[in-house]
């Protein structure tokens, strides 16, 4: 009776529309249609040789796949932080600068333009991971144990991060000449698809495995939804929040590796600039509440690619990179206004009137 009517109501709409992932998919379709109408050449993919003589694919879609991947990696960590703490980490861009700087420093040793690498890349990357996770832990301690709002706590690293990155390399600009270092942000010889995509896929697989074989997902959501009740179920909410920031640190290190690999060098004030905005947007566009709680990882990851789709579209229409934030800020405001409780209440009371009508018919 009660059950039946609920099922009946649900049956009126196909399941996909109720699923969170519908939001980024819809956004993707809108963007794609817009591009298709404006200039179908947007979807052209060409095959050629790059400057190193490797066969590569190129085109706007490949760019999206390439740059969207680092964003997707960040979105994974940002989703966890958002879910557990109900706030966002705005220091990811600065933290990427730090991780990248550390990786370069370890690779170069004392000489900023080494002929050969001083350490294996994997070692440098691992050191980068450790450092990035330490900075994540710093944010995590401020948020979880000192109970400072996440955004304000991460504001500290947001300001200091790029300075710290410069300081790590004595404000020099190390340049790596070894081509193999460029593989991570470019192409591996013989493979025409950009490497970041494979790295992102790797991260997604790891994330999937972690979510499948640990209780991380359940714990973070539980803490984000109801801290008090989580505690009474034996969880340690502060530690879960702390952990989410450390994991974001790991994602930051991976993104940092891709970023420095693209250029084989680093520009402290420009690297990963404004990426925090994109990462937060990816989470929001994925339909996840920015106030924390339930999350859908796949939806966030797709959201990241959609954001990159938007960025690339704007680029194509000759919007300058420095002006991009203005457009994205408008998207953010629209998203948060739509999801604001006061606005939702009004919308849902409107919707309820319609649904009541519907429900009456069903119950009859």
């Amino acid at each position, binding site marked *: 009776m009660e059950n039946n009517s609920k099922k009946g109501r649900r049956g009126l709409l196909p399941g996909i529309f109720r699923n969170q992932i519908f939001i980024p998919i819809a956004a993707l379709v809108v963007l794609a249609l817009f591009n298709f109408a404006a200039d179908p050449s947007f979807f052209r993919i060409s095959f050629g040789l790059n400057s190193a003589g490797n066969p590569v694919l190129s085109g706007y879609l490949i760019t999206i796949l390439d740059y969207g991947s680092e964003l997707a990696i960040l979105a994974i960590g940002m989703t966890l932080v958002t879910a557990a703490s109900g706030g966002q980490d705005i220091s990811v861009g600065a933290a990427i600068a730090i991780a990248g700087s550390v990786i370069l420093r370890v690779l170069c040793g004392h000489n900023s333009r080494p002929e050969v690498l001083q350490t294996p890349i994997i070692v440098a990357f691992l050191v980068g991971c450790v450092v990035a996770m330490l900075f994540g832990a710093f944010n995590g301690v401020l948020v979880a144990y000192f109970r400072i709002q996440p955004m304000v706590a991460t504001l500290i690293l947001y300001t200091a991060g790029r300075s710290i990155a410069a300081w790590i390399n004595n404000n020099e600009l190390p340049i790596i000449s070894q081509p193999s270092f460029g593989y991570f942000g470019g192409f591996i010889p013989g493979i025409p698809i950009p490497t970041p995509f494979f790295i992102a896929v790797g991260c997604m697989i790891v994330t999937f495995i972690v979510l499948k074989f640990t*209780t991380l997902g359940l714990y973070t959501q539980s803490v984000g939804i109801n801290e*008090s009740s989580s*505690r*009474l179920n034996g969880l340690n909410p502060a530690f879960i929040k702390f952990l989410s920031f450390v994991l974001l640190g790991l994602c930051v290190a991976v993104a940092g590796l891709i970023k420095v690999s693209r250029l084989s060098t680093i520009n402290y004030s420009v690297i990963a600039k404004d990426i925090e905005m994109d990462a937060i947007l990816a989470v929001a566009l994925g339909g996840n509440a920015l106030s924390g*709680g339930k999350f859908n990882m796949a939806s966030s990851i797709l959201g990241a690619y959609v954001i990159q789709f938007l960025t690339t579209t704007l680029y194509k229409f000759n919007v300058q990179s420095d002006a991009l934030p203005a457009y994205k800020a408008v998207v953010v405001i629209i998203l948060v206004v739509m999801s604001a409780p006061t606005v939702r209440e009004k919308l849902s009371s409107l919707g309820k009137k319609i649904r009541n009508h519907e429900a009456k018919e069903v119950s009859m």
Partner: protein
Amino acid sequence: MNKGSVLEMRNISKNFPGVKALQNVDFTLCEGEIHALMGENGAGKSTLIKVLTGVYEKDGGQIYLKGNDKAVSIRSPQDAQRLGVSTVYQEITLCPNLSVAENMYIGRGKGFFQSFKKMNAEADKILKSLDIPAKSTQQLSSCSIAIQQMVAIARAVDMDCKVLILDEPTSSLDEQEVEKLFGLMRDLKARGVGIIFVTHFLDQVYEVCDKITVLRDGQLVGEYEIKDLPRVKLVSKMLGKELDDMSDIKSESAPYSGGDASEVVFEAEGLQSNAGIKPFDFKIRKGEVNGFTGLLGSGRSECVRAIFGADRIIGGTVKMKGEKVKITKPIDAMKHGIAYLPEDRKIDGIVGDLSVRENIVLALQVMKGFFKPFSKAEAYRFADEYIKLLEIKTASADTPVKSLSGGNQQKVILARWLLMHPEYLILDEPTRGIDIGTKVEIQKLVLKLASEGISVTFISSETDEMLRTCSRLVVMRDRKAVGELSGDDLTQSKIMSTIAGGED
């Protein structure tokens, strides 16, 4: 309006989705009178007060105030204040970062600038006339809670209030502070202010009030002169049992026959938490069902929270099966086989956005460990098993638990703890706010669990529920354990007289 009355509420009704919170309730307050508003949880007294102060809008009825010819409409707290109805809540609703004088005058008066000199002088005058030991320039947060409450009252007095509502003002005060507050109340009474006093402390009602109005289940039980209503009678009115038909119904089943022979599962000595309860001793045997009883706010929930480690423990020792153990946080208790169904389902119980399945497996999952998640199939099996066992009405195991009805939410939380196969189960108000059928089911379940050897501590506002299930009751009054009843003493009247205390 009758002569001499300052407030008359007639036929007040208020409905919430699914609940009739108030049904045609009348209330009359006279000039210079302290009037107690009594009732157990859910009786409707806080709804009545919120209607009067404009927090809720009433669905029906009229409110008359002295000085207004027609019925008044009160739409917001500001409206209420303007009409001379002031409220002092249990939670201080002043700004701790402002000075005493500012708290008395902010939000009133016109003009851009505030004359601090004048304001402070006036504030000092009122504080002095009411004999409140505070200085106008002092920051409010540096005053004790009692003084803060008195400042709130001073504000109300200065706003020329005719009706002063004191909503559980004494629950965080010590005896001397309560005395001071009573002095102030009597002073105001002499000035002709009508005071509505809401409290759970019976002693205080009899010390300071003139009249009592009792509500139960959203309906008016009656208005009584204080001298006509002895304590035991008051308690029986509140609980809805006339003394006559309370002629000592023995519990239908003799639930526990183990006597003192079986093993003591849990034992606490001098246990004390930071939630403001006096140290208490407690023990429970295997397969026993016992309970904490007392009026709301008497400290019964705080006791079981202390057992489970939910509040910060500040003293006492705890033994499980004779062995001394340390329980400082919930996970410790869980590891020793203790489960706790909290009093406030929404805040402490459900994880609203998660599905029924996730809510059911949560506690067991936490016990099992971070790296050993249940597979989906296992989780579904557990969930389906308990959905069937407890007859939880839900569309599926994937439905978010917040969309279930209260009773079914409660069953989900119960399932969560039963899944853990606890040795000792604490149920704090498991039957609150759920329908009668489910209540009976839960009571039966408790007895069944006990027969399987699980020890259960059961707390309920409804005494007959406790009588039906428990073989021993710890009686709480004013945050202290004041008695223990078992065997032939387990009767309504005995419980009530112990709760009421005093000589009646």
